[in-house]
């Protein structure tokens, strides 16, 4: 049972990393990303292939996963020169599906649907086999903590105010002299790097990755985490990620109670449940369980640094 809980906690960690990234991109800056699975897969495959095919040590391979996310994120964010909102959603979704297609079809490289087996694990020879899962959980927790600190730092910094201004009205931010494109690219790339890092951590944890894991569905789980928690709020999404995992895993036990439910039916029910819950939450609590703290106008100080647009508070009821 402890082993099960430790592994669940590790998976929640991956979700949290992805959710923190999405919150940077969408919650704070208003850039939609439905290609989460693509950046996650890119990080996973980069790190895995570098260590399996080229024999690179993990301290090089795993950060390379994050760098791959960073580069891809920069390229995708360049599209935001022309696109906003819903159309960026379609393009990022396309990016995610493209990565999955490559992983599926180029099996000389990725082993395709059979899955890529990865032997290398970080610190595997330092710790005993019994304590290893806990060590890995610690590693993931450290990564989450680091990502959280970076995200919180950005949120509180003048940069964070600029980002919220861009989210509320990019034209106003532009008029105030902010380089909207540069800010968007920076934030999107940082978020994508988080996703790549999450992918690398995931790959060396499960030690077998295949394209089926990186379905667009992953994006919905992460969106759910951020929306439930409260977009723009880094604490809320941690709660959201935990809740999504609780639903995904909790429904597993339904099979023990109701015997006509086989694994396939259960997984269908799980997705239906997540979908309904997402819609209900958007209906009833559009700002999430923990709404973003309202930005307060603090007189001369905020006005002096110029990044506080007249009203950065009202996101209205839109998420």
């Amino acid at each position, binding site marked *: 049972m402890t082993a099960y809980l430790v592994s669940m906690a590790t998976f929640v960690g991956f979700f949290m990393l992805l959710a923190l990234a999405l919150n940077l991109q969408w919650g704070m800056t208003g850039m*939609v990303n439905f290609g989460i699975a693509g950046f996650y897969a890119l990080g996973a495959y980069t790190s895995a292939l570098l260590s399996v095919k080229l024999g690179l040590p993990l301290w090089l391979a795993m950060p390379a996963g994050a760098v791959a996310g960073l580069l891809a994120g920069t390229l995708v964010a360049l599209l935001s020169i*022309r*696109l906003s909102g819903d159309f960026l*959603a379609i*393009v990022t979704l396309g990016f995610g*599906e493209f990565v999955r297609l490559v992983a599926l079809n180029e099996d000389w490289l990725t082993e395709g649907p059979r899955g890529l087996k990865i032997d290398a694990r970080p610190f595997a020879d330092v710790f005993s086999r019994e304590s290893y899962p806990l060590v890995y959980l610690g590693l993931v927790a450290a990564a989450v903590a680091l990502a959280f600190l970076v995200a919180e730092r950005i949120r509180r910094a003048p940069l964070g105010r600029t980002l919220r201004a861009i989210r509320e009205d990019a034209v106003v931010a532009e008029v105030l002299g902010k380089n909207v494109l540069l800010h968007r690219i920076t934030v999107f790339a940082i978020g994508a790097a988080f996703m790549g890092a999450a992918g690398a951590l995931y790959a060396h944890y499960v030690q077998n990755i295949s394209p089926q894991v990186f379905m667009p569905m992953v994006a919905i789980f992460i969106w759910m985490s951020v929306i439930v928690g409260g977009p723009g709020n880094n604490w809320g999404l941690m709660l959201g990620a935990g809740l999504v995992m609780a639903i995904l895993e909790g429904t597993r036990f339904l099979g023990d109670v109701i015997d006509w439910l086989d694994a396939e039916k259960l997984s*269908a029910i799980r*997705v*239906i449940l997540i979908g309904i819950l997402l819609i209900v939450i958007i209906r009833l609590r559009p700002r999430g369980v923990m709404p973003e703290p309202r930005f307060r106008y603090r007189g001369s100080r905020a006005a002096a640094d110029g990044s506080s647009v007249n009203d950065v508070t009202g996101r209205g009821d839109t*998420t």
Partner: protein
Amino acid sequence: MTAQLLVNGLVNAALIAPPAIALSLLFSVLRFPNFAIGGYITAGAFLAYAANAGAGLPLWGAALVAMAGTSLLVWLSDEIVFKPLRGQDPVTLLVVSIALTLIIEHVVRLIYSADVRGFDLPLQRPHRFAGIRITEEQLELLALAAAIAALTHLLLRYTRTGRAVRATADNPVLAEVRGVPTRRIVTAVWVYSGALFGLTGVLAGLDLVIEPLLGWNLTIPIFAAAILGGIGSPYGAMLGAVLVGIAEELTVLVLPSTYKVGVGFFIIAVLLLVRPHGLLGQPEIRK
């Protein structure tokens, strides 16, 4: 070889044209990209399957059942899910529509599992003209798509409701002020689109196979066609469908066919960069 690919491309276009028209119509009055179309199409295919293989109706009867059933489902999805969220940010509605498509797809999975199915039909030998193979069903598909394009054109251009739909798409507030019952018009667009999605499900089930991911796999080419033509413009959607349909088939000449799905995305990405309002759309005026 190339002539055969062109014919295949046209058949492909005929399959995505009606839903692209429907998607464009929906977008024009609701102003958000509705990803639930994948779920609607899958629902249409399985409704027809249930009526055909289950209840033993002939295919044309099953198609009518599917169109009526999908219309009802689409209308209900508006009443229950989208109506209370009217006026929300398009991204919120987009997330909701993706959630909805997942719900529909998995309800289908729950009932029918992920097995691949087909309609209960006798096998037919394809016709041959000058070395080009085309089946009876593909000919019917082409004729149907042309008929739907023409019907949509006539409805939009010459009927009172069609005029009201165009007015609502143009400027909902002004239309409302001028006495257009915009709420009823929006409902009419949902119902009409629903029938087209249901029909697409049937046609896709004929041309491809019936499985829960049927609609999702068509979603991207449909979006590509609608965006290529200028989303919100039903005529653009017809043109976009032809271009995307042929482009998808012709890439087989240079790329492995497994990447066919990628073509739609590629078209979308390039197009949104160079001409975001599409071929026939109006550039959006930014305030």
